[in-house]
């Protein structure tokens, strides 16, 4: 029997939880059909998370592409189907990618090794400067910090995940909560996740409460790393600083928990626990358009 997992009409970091919840009761080796026929929109997080979902299945899953031509065409331009066809048996109309997409700063790109991070950073720099300054009103100097942020979140995959993941960067107007343009970095993997990574630290003593939420607090808030080297853990701390400086948001989901550094313009919950389990780590960084009187 094939379990049908319905992808919501609008797929982002919040609604992806509906997908994870549906999967929770399905064994990893069971047949599943990921049904995106009625999906009309997906954030970079949604698309990269769908690819990691494909990685988690022991039995190759089926995937039904969106019925809406415009949506399927957009997904093709982001590079989604190029990687999806390696992971899923694709059904429905899967358009060929034609031309670039102006809102896509970085199409979906696999991150497996250190050289991939060089590639990603090299490709983003010029375009990021243009977008940050012209579309988001952010000082051109912020481009370097943006590239550093991208580099550090991608490196988490190379250093800790134990398997490859994906990154995508896109700009769009976030009407629901903000009513402004944003640039969003999404980095998703289906690797070992934060808890397991920290547990691998030699001589680590676990507290009674030790779980995914505490692992995320340690890594994201306190800068703890599995390595004893005191220079470790600076990457995510640097990401937090950059995001704070530009009134942005960072959220990290791993295992059964999700932590977020929440700016004043958002009403997200800082820590969510006891979510349906999903392997690896899924990171999203959001930098909003700067308005008069905002941070410089």
């Amino acid at each position, binding site marked *: 029997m094939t379990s049908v997992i319905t992808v919501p009409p609008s797929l982002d970091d919040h609604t992806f939880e509906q997908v994870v919840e549906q999967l929770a009761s399905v064994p990893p080796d069971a047949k599943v059909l990921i049904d995106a026929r009625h999906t009309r929109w997906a954030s970079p997080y949604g698309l990269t998370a769908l690819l990691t979902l494909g990685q988690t299945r022991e039995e190759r899953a089926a995937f039904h592409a969106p019925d809406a031509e415009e949506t399927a065409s957009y997904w093709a331009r982001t590079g989604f189907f190029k990687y999806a066809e390696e992971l899923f048996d694709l059904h429905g109309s899967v358009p060929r990618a034609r031309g670039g997409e102006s809102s896509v700063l970085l199409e979906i790109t696999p991150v497996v090794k250190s050289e991939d991070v060089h590639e990603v*950073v090299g490709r983003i720099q010029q375009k990021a400067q243009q977008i940050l300054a012209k579309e988001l009103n952010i000082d051109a100097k912020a481009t370097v910090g943006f590239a550093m942020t991208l580099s550090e979140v991608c490196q988490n995959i190379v250093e800790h995940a134990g398997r490859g993941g994906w990154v995508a960067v896109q700009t769009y107007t976030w009407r629901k909560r903000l009513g402004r343009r944003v640039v969003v970095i999404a980095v998703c993997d289906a690797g070992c996740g934060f808890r397991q990574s920290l547990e691998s630290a030699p001589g680590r003593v676990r507290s009674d409460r030790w779980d995914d939420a505490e692992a995320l607090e340690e890594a994201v808030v306190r800068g703890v790393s599995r390595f004893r080297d005191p220079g470790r853990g600076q990457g995510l701390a640097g990401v937090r600083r950059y995001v704070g400086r530009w009134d942005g948001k960072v959220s990290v989901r791993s295992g059964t928990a999700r932590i977020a550094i929440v700016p004043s313009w958002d009403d997200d919950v800082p820590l969510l626990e006891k979510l349906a389990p999903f392997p690896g780590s899924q990171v999203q960084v959001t930098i909003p358009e700067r308005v008069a009187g905002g941070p410089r």
Partner: protein
Amino acid sequence: MMMHIDLSSVLRQTVSCELYSNLVTRPTGAAVRAQIEALLADARERSLTVIDFSHVGMIDFSCADEVVAKLLLRTTSSERGEREAYFLFRGVTDDHWDAIETVLERHRLALVLETDDGAARIVGIVGDGERAAWEKVYELGRTAPADLATALGADESDAVEVLNTLHRRRLVMRTEEGYIAVGGIGIQHD
């Protein structure tokens, strides 16, 4: 002995790609530092090396930790015995500074930066007394503890102590004739 290391050249040799000009990722940083250390291995008992960032696009935190912090930590540790390695950092811009400043703070390190006009200044974690002493040594040129004590209006024993600290941190060089600030060589003094 004075050496000049163009980091962008070392980077290209390390990652085997002409296109990369960014110092990103920890493995890249570790490889670049290993290359620098290999170049320094041939140095005599005292060496001054210019680490040149002029052609580096950007550096991230992980790479700065490997290239800058670990390089300084290894050369300021006593394990290196008699060999004294000093560094002057050139071509550091705002695009590099965020990451470098972060790792200096994390490890409580300091270094000497060459500014656009060819002067030098110390940056990082430096006490007021250390900064005042370093700036005075930089201004005076070759300086004996007694000269520094006079210039600062301090006891000679205090001058000796602060010079020893700056020397241990490889911010001043100790010679038989006195102390010289890193970056102070070649500067005209009255």
